């Protein structure tokens, strides 16, 4: 296929990540995903690996393997993240903070770094990191989550500056409330609170999220880098 891209997405065993996999496969792309869980994968043109993105050696090997197998990486969607119950900062255990730091900051850092090495040599690439609406909204009870998701935003902006001369763009999306298997565990009160804080007070679909990614990975956005799109929110 003429416009077939090799798209690497982290955190694809379920939820938004899995939804993105299905969308980009339906658009005729090759998708390479990863997650901590073992999954059954029968999807054509989808290559899933069991990877812990906080393990530097595992990520290095995985990215090299992708490069060898597919000869390039056109797009990275750094999506892997943790969702845990919200607690006020005064009662949040350090272990919760550490797990967010590991996955959101360390994991995102390692994956973006290794994929960047491939993209620099290609002189082309699109990196999209997934942060959260909790960053602009500063939601109560999300201090550890929001602090680490905020780090993703600034990390992406710095990377955007560093990679600008190489033809690689880096942008961030803060998804609105998207109903997936993962959000079934959220209370209705919490969902209502979040929707009330959004400017567009409705849930969003994975397709709407993918439409934004489609814009970032297309040739028409080659001059757009270091930007943050917050779905359904005026910031």
């Amino acid at each position, binding site marked *: 296929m003429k416009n077939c891209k090799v798209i690497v997405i982290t955190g694809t065993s379920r939820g938004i990540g899995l939804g993105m996999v299905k969308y980009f496969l339906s658009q005729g792309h090759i998708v390479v995903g990863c997650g901590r869980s073992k999954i059954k994968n029968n999807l054509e043109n989808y290559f899933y690996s069991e990877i812990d993105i906080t393990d530097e*050696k595992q990520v290095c090997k995985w990215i*090299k393997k992708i490069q060898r197998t597919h000869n390039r990486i056109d797009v990275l969607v750094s999506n892997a993240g943790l969702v845990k119950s919200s607690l006020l900062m005064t009662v949040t255990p350090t272990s919760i903070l550490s797990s967010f730091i590991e996955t959101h900051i360390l994991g995102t850092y390692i994956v973006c770094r290794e994929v960047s*090495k491939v993209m*620099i*040599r290609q002189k082309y690439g699109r990196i999209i990191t997934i942060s959260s609406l909790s960053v602009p909204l500063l939601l109560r009870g999300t201090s550890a989550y929001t602090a680490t998701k905020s780090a993703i935003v600034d990390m992406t902006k710095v990377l955007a500056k*560093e990679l600008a*001369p*190489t033809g690689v763009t880096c942008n961030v999306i803060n998804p609105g409330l998207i109903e997936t298997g993962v959000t079934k565990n959220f209370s209705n009160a919490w969902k209502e609170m979040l929707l009330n804080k959004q400017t567009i007070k409705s849930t969003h679909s994975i397709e709407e999220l993918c439409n934004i990614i489609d814009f970032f990975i297309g040739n028409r956005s080659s001059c757009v880098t270091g930007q943050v799109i917050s779905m359904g929110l005026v910031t």
Partner: protein
Amino acid sequence: MITYENAINLIQESCDSLHRGGLIDSKVIIDKETHVLGGKSIFDSIGFVTLFAEIEDSIMEKTNSDVFLILDDINEFDIDTPFLSAGVIASHIVEITKNID
């Protein structure tokens, strides 16, 4: 395993490959004193990253093993005074490939 002289040659080949690919502007002649990272480096930061990735690929081609160049693993590297010569990298390549058949 890769000898020190082979490692210097490998770094030279990697530089040549980057030059051919248009990733560095001018042809570079490497010896053990050549600065590849630091104030007197012949590469900018992007060039250095690209060189490291190219060297990793060359080692993999030659040894058929996954080898990764990680700055933290290079004994002579000090993050507070970042400097690397081709000779230091060559010694590190010898070290990390010594147990590979």
